[in-house]
């Protein structure tokens, strides 16, 4: 189904064509058919048509203006309404003066004084225009792309070896950074961009496409976004979602016995851990969240992290595993930035700063207390 913005674009295209000279009976028939198709078409059409008919009343402003000259903004010479009556008019319909209305009022008065003094237009206004134009471009581009891929379903899978890191650019402009020892299946269809995270961790930089949600599923859970940046990591017992921009919705399939499980909204800065017990959300700053994602540039950062967790982190990236030999040292707290490819250095530093002794084996490094 077309999005509401697409419908609005089509409705305005119909109306502007009808406003032109070459409107034929055949065109009218086609328009009728389009309006018949759905109420959504009709209401969009009605709204624009009504607005356009309203604009006819601008003629009241044309009195005394020479033909062909478009008056400057704000140069309307309309006496301001008396203060007592100004409030309801500023606030539109419901009486409460809203901030935007006040801004508009301020803007208007500055506009008229500008017009009087013939000062150049203010840059913010220009900027606003560019922003709008830029947005329109983005919308058009994504529409065009969506159209081209109308019925296409692309499917591809990607995987990385231990210690591997891979950027996967998608045709929609999104980029997936695949972490060590991870596997994804990407399915791009008309209505959805679906990534099945089968193993490991990946960071998603999602291109905006309101018509096609970006869904990352892992087992019975899904993290859904439209245009945002987030990280999803799948472990045996839990799923971790870190959001660094935008909002992600974390959904779960029904639990055992059809019990409904809540979905959770994760704004930027969230670190969510989902396990069988439920979802725990830790909301902090985006910077804090970013720290968990330094793996993308080859680092691991720890802050007061239990040694057992830090070792597990290293083990994600290295074939030679760090094993905690004595339970007592697993709870030692470590901090700092480490290159994940260099577990040996990490172990050496541990030996220097902690009562820890490393026994180097072929596939493992066992840590014991001294």
């Amino acid at each position, binding site marked *: 189904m077309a999005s509401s913005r697409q419908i609005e674009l089509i409705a*305005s295209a119909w109306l502007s064509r009808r406003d032109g000279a070459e409107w034929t009976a055949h065109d009218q028939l086609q328009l*009728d058919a389009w309006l018949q198709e759905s109420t959504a078409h009709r209401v969009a059409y009605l709204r624009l048509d009504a607005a356009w008919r309203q604009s006819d009343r*601008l003629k009241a402003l044309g009195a005394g203006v020479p033909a062909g000259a478009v008056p400057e903004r704000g140069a309307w010479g309309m006496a301001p309404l008396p203060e007592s009556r100004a409030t309801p008019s500023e606030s539109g319909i419901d009486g409460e003066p809203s901030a935007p209305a006040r801004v508009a009022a301020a803007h208007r008065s500055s506009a008229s004084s500008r017009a009087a003094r013939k000062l150049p237009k203010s840059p913010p206004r220009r900027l606003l*225009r560019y922003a709008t134009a830029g947005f329109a471009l983005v919308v058009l581009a994504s529409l065009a792309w969506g159209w081209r891929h109308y019925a296409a379903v692309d499917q591809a899978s990607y995987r990385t070896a231990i210690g591997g890191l891979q950027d996967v650019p998608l045709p929609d402009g999104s980029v997936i950074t695949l972490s060590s020892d991870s596997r994804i299946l990407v399915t791009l269809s008309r209505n959805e961009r679906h990534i099945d995270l089968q193993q490991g961790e990946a960071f998603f930089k999602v291109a905006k496409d309101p018509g096609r949600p970006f869904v990352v599923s892992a087992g019975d859970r899904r993290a859904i976004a439209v245009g945002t940046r987030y990280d999803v990591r799948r472990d045996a017992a839990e799923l971790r979602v870190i959001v660094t921009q935008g909002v992600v919705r974390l959904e779960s399939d029904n639990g055992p016995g059809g019990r409904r499980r809540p979905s959770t909204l994760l704004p930027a800065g969230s670190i969510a851990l989902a396990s069988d017990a439920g979802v725990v959300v830790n909301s902090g700053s985006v910077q804090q969240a970013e720290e968990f994602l330094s793996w993308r540039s080859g680092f691991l950062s720890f802050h007061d992290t239990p040694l057992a967790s830090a070792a597990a982190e290293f083990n994600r990236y290295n074939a030679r595993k760090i094993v905690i030999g004595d339970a007592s040292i697993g709870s030692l707290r470590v901090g700092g930035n480490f290159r994940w490819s260099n577990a040996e250095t990490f172990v050496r530093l541990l030996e220097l700063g902690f009562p820890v002794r490393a026994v180097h084996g072929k596939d493992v490094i066992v840590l014991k207390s001294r």
Partner: protein
Amino acid sequence: MWPHRRHDAVIGAWIGVTVRGVDDSLDNWFIREILVHERALMRYLLRSWYRRDEIHDLRQDIYVRVYEAAAKARPAMPKSFMFTTARHLMTDRLRRARVVSIDAVGDLDALNVLIDEVSPERRLSARQELKQLTEAFDRLPDRCREVVWLRRVEELPQKEVALRMGIGEKTVEKQVAKGMRLIAEYFYGGGHAHRSRERAAADAEHGDGHGQQQAD
């Protein structure tokens, strides 16, 4: 069929004048009783709904439901009917998303319509309406504003607007379409959607997620 509808509208207007002084066709009812409250509706949606990018779509759904319901029977209090519809739709969407978490409860609370939003509507005077329309017109981009002026105020055909401005006819048509959309957004919606969209775009650029913090 549209020609029939138009015909109906004309007859409706004629009956309206003689009987009640109001054109009572469904389309006109919708414009007169529903669209005029778009500003209040947009404010409500922006406050209640967590996804700005969905508001345009949400508004369309609300209009569709109200229009279809009114086709069967006109609600006695159109404005509060529209707000009730809005609330139901948002609740439905949240349910469909299976959100029952703490965040969602917060959202559901926000769905309570403020009294002032459903209070009996204060109609704008013709002069106030013209003022809003002028503001909407002044917010149009330069070229679009010029096209709208020549077409609407000077009533030049699109072809002549193109000649006058030295641009293609297709361009004029596109600017007319754009003018309609923007005037509708500014005049009916108060331009809220635009403001928030720009703000969202700015936020996205800085990636700082301002105002998106959430308690544990």
